């Protein structure tokens, strides 16, 4: 193999690796849960809003009353959302656009909206949401193979 060919091949592999690395970052999916619930931080109690509407991208807005939780799926490491907050009944809602980075290692991210709007540090409003796989009672499921190629719909 001549030198030019080798360089070309190594270059091609490097380009593939770089693109794959980019896909890891830009394609990382997260499910973000929004809480409009009472929380406390350093002994300080943060009250929920009367109503919050959270819009992420072109997804269906999550309308949260006191104590509600909404969710949205995002791709990548940046979360940009629009919050329409109504502080008390009869008040006019005020809109805020919020952008933040999300941790790569978290699949589910829980954000407490009142704590976020108070300007508290990240650990006060963000935590990991771990989904428990429901225990179906059985220890295993029957594996279905198509050993004899009986087909089905394509």
């Amino acid at each position, binding site marked *: 193999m001549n030198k030019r060919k080798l360089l070309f091949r190594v270059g091609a592999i490097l380009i593939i690796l770089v693109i794959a690395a980019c*896909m*890891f970052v830009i394609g990382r999916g997260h499910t973000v849960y929004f809480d409009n619930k009472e929380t406390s931080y350093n002994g300080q109690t943060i009250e929920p809003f009367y109503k919050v509407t959270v819009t992420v991208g072109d997804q269906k807005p999550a309308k949260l009353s006191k104590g509600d939780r909404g969710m949205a799926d995002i791709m990548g490491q940046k979360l940009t959302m629009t919050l329409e907050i109504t502080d008390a009944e009869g008040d006019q809602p005020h809109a805020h656009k919020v952008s933040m980075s999300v941790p790569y290692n978290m699949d589910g991210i829980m954000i407490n909206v009142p704590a976020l709007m108070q300007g508290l540090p990240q650990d006060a409003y963000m935590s990991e949401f771990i989904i428990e796989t429901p225990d179906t009672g059985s220890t295993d499921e029957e594996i279905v*193979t198509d050993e004899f*190629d009986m087909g089905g719909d*394509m």
Partner: protein
Amino acid sequence: MNKNTNKKASPDLFNLVQRFSVPLMFILICAVCIPLSGLSANMLINEIVTRMGRNAFLILSLLIPIMAGMGLNFGMTLGAMAAEIALIFVSDWQIVGIPGMVLAAFISIPISVLLGIFCGKILNEAKGREMITSYIMSFFINGIYQLVVLYLMGSVIPIKHGSIKLPRGYGIRNTVSLLSMRQKLDNLLAIQIAGVKIPVLTFIIIALLCLFIVWFSKTKLGQDMRAVGQDMEVARDAGINVERTRIISIVMSTVLAGFGMIIYLQNMGNIATYSAHSQIGMFCIAALLVGGASVDRASIGNVFLGVILFHTMFIVAPKAGAAITGDSMIGEYFRVFVSKSAAGQQLQAAQDAEEAAGKEKAE
């Protein structure tokens, strides 16, 4: 002179009808079944367009080994398995959407290449019996695939998410959800024409593969493959490394089949972990044969005609069967029976046509 032409034209026409007996038979079956099925034209076209986007890439991956004289590559199943392994990893790493598909394609490449080299080397030891060898090879690799997916994933190979793993803690579930990438490729740039959804980006990718195949057949390697396909001994005498050329054709087919499987599964939205790949080889080959291809001759046109005819039958047969017999299960049996018998019939017809042509040549 005229008499001679007429004499020649008659067997030619007979050979032509014999060679295209399966496409003609399918046109006939579709013509009968479409009205019986009661499906509207809009729905039927929608289904055919969807299935064209879903399957065409996979079927196109069969053309290169045919070019190299290796027949219909049942070993494309190996590429499908590589794609499934890649998609299981990507699902576990939670890489979603188009980036997830691209990453899965990249991960599938080394697995497909390794499997393709292995398959190619074995097929070189079984010259003249490539199809049956690759068919049995797909069963063999399926066993290894099941060992990896059923026992090694989760125990030796790290799999994090419980939604993918079997309740016992290792092995992959029967179905892995690809909801996060379902139809992402099809919906990007999709347009609606008279109520029919056209997955433009998927078709662009298929068109690019068609262009690649046309371009590739004109390159030095493509010409070498043609030469090997026509006569291995002559090709060897001409200085072509026959074994290497054959391995390359199988590797290319396996890699392309892997990409095709990713396109197929993103359209479906889930992986049937232990069965999705086993059906792929047979149905893709059946579709190609229905399109008028034979073991040593296939074109891009055969792919598209095959997809249209085969899948039209697939769509309408159960409903037509139900309408005729009153039992939808008979329709299901009917389509499996017809698709597999059609593949056999087409292979036989192609063989007969070749023998007739050979006799004519000898005369």
